[in-house]
């Protein structure tokens, strides 16, 4: 999942309408529409909720209700890198807490937050399904397992190094 470039894009009605029309051929398409909106922008912009509601002829309150019901949807933009911390049973037993603590120290974002520099969004997830490699996290869609606090340092440092090499990102 690479969303970084598009997160800075402003939501446009043309893009939202195209997504709606693509899915709206079948009944019950609100969720697939929202999923693609989020894939495009990294989050569900409030303006999109209104637009989807008008286009699909459902009350905006219902679309909003769906967004808040399902854990997948977020209403805030993402940082440049999305880190999902697995809090499954196996990870819990094998020390996710310590790994998560270290992660929030080195990224500057606690679970559910985006770091001040916009570099990292850290999310808490129920289970990534890689229980034999507990504890594990997912960074931009790639899973890392058998983690230790030291391994967290390495992963975060590598991301920072990679980001520094690229064209300096605009702030904010």
């Amino acid at each position, binding site marked *: 999942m690479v969303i970084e470039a598009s997160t800075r894009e402003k939501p446009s009605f043309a893009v939202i309408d195209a997504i709606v029309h693509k899915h709206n051929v079948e009944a019950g398409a609100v969720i697939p529409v929202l999923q693609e909106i989020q894939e495009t922008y990294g989050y569900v912009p409030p303006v999109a909720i209104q637009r989807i509601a008008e286009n699909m002829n459902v009350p905006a309150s219902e679309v909003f209700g769906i967004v808040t*019901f399902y854990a997948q*949807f977020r209403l805030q933009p993402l940082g440049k890198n999305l880190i999902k911390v697995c809090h499954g*049973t196996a990870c819990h*037993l*094998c020390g996710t807490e310590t790994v998560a603590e270290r992660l929030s120290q080195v990224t500057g974002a606690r679970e559910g937050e985006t770091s001040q520099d916009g570099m990292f969004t850290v999310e808490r997830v129920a289970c990534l399904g890689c229980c*034999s*490699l507990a504890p594990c996290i997912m960074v931009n869609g790639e*899973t890392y397992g058998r983690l230790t606090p030291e391994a967290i340092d390495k992963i975060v440092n590598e991301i920072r190094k990679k980001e520094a090499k690229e064209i300096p990102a605009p702030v904010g």
Partner: protein
Amino acid sequence: MSWARDKSWLIKVGLASCGIAAGGRKVYDAFSTQFGDRGLDVKLKQTGCMGMCYNEVLVEVSSPEKERIFYGKVTPEKVERIINEHIIGGKPVTEWVIPDEEINSFLAKQTRIVLRNCGIIDPESIDDYLAADGYQAIDKILRSMSPQEVISEVTNSGLRGRGGAGFPTGIKWGFARKSANRQKYIICNADEGDPGAFMDRSVLESDPHSVIEGILIAGYAVGASEGYIYVRAEYPLAIQRLEIAIAQSREAGFIGESILGYNFDFDIKIRQGAGAFVCGEETALIMSIEGRRGMPRFRPPFPAQSGLWGKPTTINNVETLANVPWIILHGADAYNTYGTEKSKGTKVFALAGKVARGGLIEVPMGITLREIVFNIGGGTSTGLEFKAIQIGGPSGGVIPASLADTRVDYESVTETGAIMGSGGLIVMDETSCMLDIAKFFLNFTQAESCGKCTFCRVGTLRMLEILQRITEGNGKEGDIELLEELAQNVKRASLCGLGQTAPNPVLTTVKYFRDEYEAHIYEKKCPAKKCPALITYEIIPEKCPGCGLCTKYCPTGAISGEKKKPYVIDNEKCIRCGLCMKVCRLDAVSVY
């Protein structure tokens, strides 16, 4: 399709999610580059989950004489030596080979029906699936069986729903068959939401065609023409491989109109779940496909009469459907030779937690938990004493070591107070606090409650608050009884399975580990040394060389001292996160 007869070396790399997470793609690329650079004639294949997840990255090397050797924990750096010594030199690198005894003890008690192709075929190749008798079952029923005969065969096999409830699959299909409606649906429930469970994900990633074939057979049996696979969005690889498989299957004529030239049309669509545990419940799942908040509704009417868009709908779990082609091909009698009187066949489990050999296993029903933990799992990973096993995830319960001889079948597991569930098995050793586990699961179900039923919404929260209070050292007399009373009420007053089973982790831990609850309440002690409010970290001066590593990791600056002299922890500042203990290489940090 003909690789089995080829006279060359064959390398398989396990590339399901856990293999990839352990670095499998890099290993695969390393082999690929080496073979390309050196012009070696070696067949390189990706495959799915081989089951021995604790040994990821797994690589299987087969010689032209079909001698198979498994390497465990392979890294890209190890690839060159394996090629040089094993493939060119003919001598396996013995120090990296997984010993035969280990493989045998891991596999001896297993029977692979659902996982028959997992870790063997390339999940992205329909030819591989066809070579492994794939789509033979759908061919057989279209050619020679009536829908009623298919239902009878599945009923006679004794197959029960593997999603957790254990309802007989054939009977479920029979209900939907009887519904007089021209439009019917099949839904494959792949919304595997239990934390600690990865059975369905592994099957979808390793053998997606077997699930598709199962859906087709179910569709033919009940008279449906459309199917949905409702799969978690958190499983991107499973979705990707399903999409590939559906496209291949459509092209080969197994999905679409007049399948294989017979009067049977069927189409399959994928719907991605958006992250709500309650959508594993069938009526909530239907709501979600219809594009609404996934909130369960009252039954009856059952989905078999009125389900998706008000039409008769059959919902089966991934594992249930993966069993079906095998049953059709080998017959009900072959299937029901496995298992116990009321629970036939096999069950797939995701074995994880503090177990030495965690992974994806499939065992005949009736095996004991002890055999799973010790014979297959090799005991605890820490070498500490086996304390309990958690079965069934947030809806299940904790079974203590003293009941390890419990047989794995629907009835025996239910008798302990737990449930079979979908197949999560979490092994716990003496460092696992039972209150912490109960709190962990309740925290999960409390957050996932859809909020429709008051007892599930508020009752679970009150229970969680009591548990929190106890683990923070503020428990009081009567708390255990209050928990039990609330638990019974939540069970009684909830509409769906989520609420009805949510108190199970609390009830089973109270039942089997009451002394641990009492230690927290009356002695303000956590026997497993887990609950932060009841423990203290300390640096042992004799062991501490004063390297200062722990100070770098301490998030609150609670550790101080001079270099090369023992450090000390300031208890006022310490938040008991345990980072110092984890990073100390000399075990100089203790907890009491």
